[in-house]
């Protein structure tokens, strides 16, 4: 492996224009002069979106249908955080049925997004191919399984919300559609059948070699305190460094946003760290004991233990979470069917004020905050996106990883792959993160 030209004092320049197999446009740029890193950036070159600006003046009821358009992959997640925030601002308490249905569609999206990422965006690296397309010929059973599982996840979203990308039926105050019992029973059957597919997926991933790289950082996520469920839909803010819970309404005590010139998305830090991570691994590190027993077993099989500081294991945590979400969805459907579904009117606002809401979306902790004026129009909006929160942490990882790769005598091509895999492991969603920014930067 060792290349005689690769002594640690060498000069290396890596420029990956538009990292592929991530959602959105980002560039990796690293310069090393005589063994010292002189430049290291994950530059985010996605276009500006300005959602926070143009939400102002729109009717309060439109917030979820506008903000879900931030991202195709996590539109259910944005919808969830959005309805939570707007309901806090408008003093709305939704029914238990509403919470159950919204939770089910959010599980559907976690499954859809994680499986998409693992099969379509991450796995090709491990097979040494550029995309999932060649795998259709060499490993057709893997691709067919991936499509079967993804379709199930989409159909969960479809049954509850009308469709996965930009769901129709989820509104501030409730849901505008109730699924039929036989639709839910059909999903339950397919979720049970999916256990076999998941088992094979776990087997596949147990054979893939995860790069050995650890760096201590802070992991931030929601947590349902007490003996609550594994947090996706709601909870309080906790972290591996500061496990005392903070209410979502006080999220500004835990998140500090900063504009950075080279990044088309704001960077974030916490009161205790200059960089922190959110996402599946953060949730796992904070809430592992709240996972379904089957998911805990899979975590054991794959050697994943809290607190895990290897960012490449975000993929492993995603897989573990899908085992949890399948079981949690089955239990949820049983509960919904036992209660019985009835058509309910949307709960109207009781006030127009300010409110914050959050959800654990596939890529991590998402905050929405709105203010509503006395005319019912939105007059303030702030959105804090998981990938934006991860950017400073990814750069810190790259700072720690690059000298190790240099010292190992790795060639430039392989180094680039390792760095791209690192970025991909975070499953970054750059469209989301740059709901506001554009960037031009100087060499």
């Amino acid at each position: 492996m060792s290349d005689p030209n690769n002594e640690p004092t060498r000069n290396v320049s890596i420029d990956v224009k538009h990292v592929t197999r991530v959602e959105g446009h980002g560039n990796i740029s690293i310069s090393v002069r005589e063994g010292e890193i002189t430049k290291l950036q994950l530059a985010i070159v996605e276009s500006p979106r300005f959602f926070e600006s143009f939400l102002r003046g729109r009717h309060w009821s439109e917030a979820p249908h506008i903000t879900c358009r931030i991202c195709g992959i996590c539109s259910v997640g944005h919808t969830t955080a959005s309805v939570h925030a707007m309901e806090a601002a408008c003093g709305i308490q939704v029914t238990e049925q509403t919470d159950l249905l919204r939770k089910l569609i959010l599980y559907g999206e976690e499954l859809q997004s994680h499986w998409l990422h693992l099969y379509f965006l991450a796995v090709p690296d491990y097979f040494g191919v550029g995309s999932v397309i060649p795998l259709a010929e060499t490993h057709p059973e893997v691709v067919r399984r991936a499509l079967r599982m993804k379709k199930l996840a989409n159909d969960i979203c479809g049954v509850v919300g009308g469709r996965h990308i930009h769901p129709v039926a989820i509104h501030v105050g409730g849901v505008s559609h109730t699924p039929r019992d036989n639709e839910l029973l059909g999903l339950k059957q397919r979720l049970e059948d999916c256990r076999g597919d998941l088992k094979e997926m776990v087997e596949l991933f147990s054979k893939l070699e995860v790069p050995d790289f650890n760096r201590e950082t802070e992991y931030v996520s929601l947590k349902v305190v007490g003996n609550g469920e594994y947090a996706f839909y709601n909870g309080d803010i906790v972290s591996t460094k500061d496990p005392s819970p903070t209410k979502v309404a006080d999220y500004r005590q835990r998140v500090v946003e900063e504009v950075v010139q080279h990044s088309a998305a704001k960077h974030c830090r916490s009161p205790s760290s200059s960089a922190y991570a959110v996402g599946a691994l953060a949730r796992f590190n904070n809430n592992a004991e709240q996972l379904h027993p089957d998911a805990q077993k899979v975590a054991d099989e794959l050697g994943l233990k809290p607190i895990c500081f290897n960012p490449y294991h975000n993929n492993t945590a995603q897989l573990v979470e899908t085992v949890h979400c399948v079981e949690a969805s089955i239990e949820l459907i049983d509960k919904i069917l036992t209660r019985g579904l009835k058509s309910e009117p949307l709960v109207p606002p009781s006030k127009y004020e300010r409110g914050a809401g959050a959800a654990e979306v596939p890529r991590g902790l998402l905050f929405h905050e709105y203010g509503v004026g006395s005319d019912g129009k939105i007059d303030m909006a702030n959105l804090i996106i998981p990938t934006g929160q991860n950017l400073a942490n990814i750069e810190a990882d790259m700072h720690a990883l690059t000298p190790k790769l240099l010292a190992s005598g790795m060639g430039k091509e392989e180094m680039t792959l390792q760095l791209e895999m690192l970025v991909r492991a975070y499953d970054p969603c750059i469209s989301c993160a740059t709901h506001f920014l554009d960037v031009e930067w100087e060499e």
Partner: protein
Amino acid sequence: MKPKIAIFSLTGCEGCSLAILELEDQLLDILGAVEIVNFREGMTERSWDIDIGFVDGAVSTPEDEKEIIRFRESCKTLVAIGSCACLGGINTLKNYQPEDEYRRYVYGDKAIWFPTIAARALSAVVKVDYELPGCPMIKEEFVRFVKCMLTGRPFELPDYAVCVECKKKGNLCLYEKGVICLGPVTRAGCDAICPSFGSKCEGCRGILGHEALCAAGVNLREQYDVSLDDVLADFRLFGAYQEKDLP
């Protein structure tokens, strides 16, 4: 020879590209019939010899303008997919605020770092051969389009309103429930998904044209005492209309 396909994204949520990956039942058949040569979201390899290029997202930055011109030059057939590419989409909401103001609201004194232009449809910059509107685009319509391209048949969008599909499904009209809905003037092809799930049509597939607007305007005023001015904010949501078109 299989047609060489590319999928590009400009300013948007990339949901329409994702919708292609969500064609689970047809994806392997489509991959067997075409060759995907450039799709950054899903593959590493990138080629610029392209027969059919699909583009989602709007033109919203100086960089987008350069990119769409490059795509146009590289693709024999250029197809706009989704409301952003076809109409400008949700991005056009920023066009109603002064540029300085919407940039400053997000960035404060750092606004100068982040240039932007008014959001617009692809057709405002380059010639577009086909449009598949919707937010997101309709997957079934995409499959129908691909079939037409592969077999050399002509492709056309439905030229009737969402109301037609909604009535066919037996939905209770939302106007009867006091909800203002853009179904009477919006292009069909979505199987009236929003009203079928209890939600008003938001016009994401664009309006049918001036005549349809005038007819609907008269009907709605007479039947429900609603004028098209009442739905101005809804028309803006996806850039579905030009204000001067209002009767």
